């Protein structure tokens, strides 16, 4: 029969490719408590939905008679798959071959992942574990080849940057990830790492040689470092948890920047008014409260599970960012957490906010902002961190925002930093617990009325009087009277009010959406 031997060889090569780094390497990998890249892909996508590309890419080994002895596959596995029925592109390094450090075919396939996502306008998921290039280069047999890429070649980082403006990108670090894979890992809208993963620019040996520090991979780039550095968004308890978080993330975003986010069926009544909201903010401004609880009470829940999916909890923790649903619509959520420096905007919180707002704009996600902003973080550490620049950058991102925006002033809105919580043409609701002004009374009075207080018969009594008088001016009622907010409301009405507004805002969007010019960058 024609071509039978070739067809047999195709099938034989496919079998060999699925052996990855071989039985011993796979066993060793499993013993470390890690899954192989093919197991990871299967854990992410719908059953039997993997449509692989380039399974036949690799290096064959022949005997003298030209018979195929072995076949070393590319150590990057790539293809199409479905996540809850939706098409995605998924790929990742095969650590069982050369520790994931790219072999020639692996490098080609890994670089192709972004081009594929751009071409087919589909979400991209990259599951990373591996090192960067070796000092000798990816291909050791270069003697008779030209050195370097041709001058007319497009940089491999061009498509990496482009994807962030065109399609959602979600990544995971599931083991040591260093060099180029680490850069690819953070070039994403959502990233997650497992407890035993490490993210490194350079590994322990290079660091010891250059700087003298004797540190383990974990000490250099474990989750305790990179969840706080902001390089990685979320922690996963297991590899499957990491994959599940990616599935959750993808459920909130459209396939690409030319589509709008979905509205799913909502079983949670939109007119649900929670009594707890009435008293959740203490009357004393010294007492903190639980902002996440407010978010959960207001936004959709199903079977008592909140739709709120928090992103980057440990980085810049005075700002809370995440995705949720309201009346089934996908929304971006921004809030202050007063448990961290009263919710004050630090340099890292500002960078987190700027990045999140750009992400919401990239995929047309309306923003709901729950405001309790006491202002930029003050003090020497904050000045050294350049908070004023990062904070103003965040405000600029908000001002250039083009998505529907609603702000609920839950508590404080002071100083310049407050501007980062109110988008252009935004809908503003105020709770009775709101207080606004240039700066909080306590600090402000002592400075502005220093002479008057010093000259008074009883300075501390005069300061108290002034504070009381000015506190009245920070009340939300005069602002509502002056139509400086759309409405002052009973906190229990927050959910129905926001849901009514969101339906109007979403339906007012006309024409096909376009990619946002200021795309999110890593």
């Amino acid at each position, binding site marked *: 029969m024609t071509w039978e031997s070739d067809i047999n060889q195709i099938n034989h090569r496919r079998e060999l490719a699925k052996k990855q780094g071989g039985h011993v390497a796979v066993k060793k990998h499993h013993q470390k408590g890690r899954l192989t890249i093919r197991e990871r892909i299967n854990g992410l996508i719908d059953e039997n939905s993997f449509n692989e590309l380039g399974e036949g890419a690799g290096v064959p080994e022949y005997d003298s008679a030209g018979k195929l002895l072995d076949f070393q596959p590319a150590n990057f596995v790539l293809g199409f798959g479905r996540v809850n029925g939706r098409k995605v592109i998924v790929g990742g390094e095969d650590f069982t071959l050369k520790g994931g450090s790219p072999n020639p075919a692996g490098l080609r396939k890994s670089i192709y992942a972004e081009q594929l996502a751009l071409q087919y306008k589909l979400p991209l998921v990259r599951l990373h574990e591996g090192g960067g290039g070796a000092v000798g280069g990816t291909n050791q047999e270069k003697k008779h080849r030209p050195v370097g890429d041709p001058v007319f070649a497009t940089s491999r980082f061009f498509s990496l940057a482009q994807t962030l403006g065109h399609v959602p990108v979600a990544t995971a670090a599931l083991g040591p990830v260093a060099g180029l894979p680490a850069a690819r890992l953070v070039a994403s809208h959502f990233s997650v790492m497992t407890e035993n993963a490490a993210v490194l620019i350079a590994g322990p040996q290079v660091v010891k040689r250059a700087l003298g520090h004797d540190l383990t991979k974990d000490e250099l780039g474990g989750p305790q470092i990179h969840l706080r550095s902001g390089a990685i968004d979320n922690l996963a308890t297991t590899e499957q948890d990491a994959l599940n978080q990616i599935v959750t993330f993808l459920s909130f975003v459209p396939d690409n920047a030319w589509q709008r986010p979905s509205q799913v069926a909502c079983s949670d009544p939109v007119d649900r008014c929670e009594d707890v909201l009435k008293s959740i903010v203490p009357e004393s*401004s*010294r*007492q*903190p409260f639980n902002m996440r609880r407010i978010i959960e009470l207001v936004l959709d829940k199903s079977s008592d599970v909140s739709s709120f999916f928090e992103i980057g909890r440990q980085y810049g*923790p005075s700002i809370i960012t995440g995705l949720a649903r309201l009346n089934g619509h996908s929304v971006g959520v921004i809030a202050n957490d*007063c*448990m*961290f*420096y*009263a919710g*004050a905007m630090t340099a890292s919180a500002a960078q987190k906010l700027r990045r999140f707002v750009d992400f919401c704009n990239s995929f047309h996600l309306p923003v709901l902002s729950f405001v309790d902003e*006491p202002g930029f973080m003050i003090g020497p550490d904050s000045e050294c961190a350049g908070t004023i620049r990062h904070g103003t950058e965040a405000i600029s991102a908000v001002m250039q925002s083009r998505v529907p925006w609603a702000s609920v002033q839950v508590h404080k809105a002071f100083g310049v930093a407050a501007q980062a919580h109110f988008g252009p043409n935004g809908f503003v609701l105020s709770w009775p617990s709101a207080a606004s002004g240039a700066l*909080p009374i*306590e*600090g402000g009075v002592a400075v502005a009325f220093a002479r008057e207080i010093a000259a008074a018969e009883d300075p501390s009594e005069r300061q108290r009087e002034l504070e009381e008088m000015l506190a009245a001016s920070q009340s939300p009622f005069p602002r509502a009277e002056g139509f400086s907010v759309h409405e002052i409301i009973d906190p229990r009405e927050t959910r129905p009010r926001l849901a009514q507004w969101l339906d109007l805002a979403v339906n007012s969007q006309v024409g096909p959406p376009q990619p946002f010019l200021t795309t999110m960058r890593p």
Partner: protein
Amino acid sequence: MRLHLKTHVAGQVWKLVTQVGDEILADQVILIVECMKMEIPIVSTTSGKLVELRVSEKDLLVENQTVAILETGQ
């Protein structure tokens, strides 16, 4: 196992609300730090016996400083 309980904010110890020897539950407030004019509770992440309090009222704290040690029995 001994668990080092740390403060997530810099500030001043405003009030100790537990004593050495107390049996502590998860999410229980150990002490309160005054920070940016707010009373921020430092809560236990797990249950256990409070074996050491490393700070006193009015002490100034830096971020991530260990404030108490819990014997978790695990």
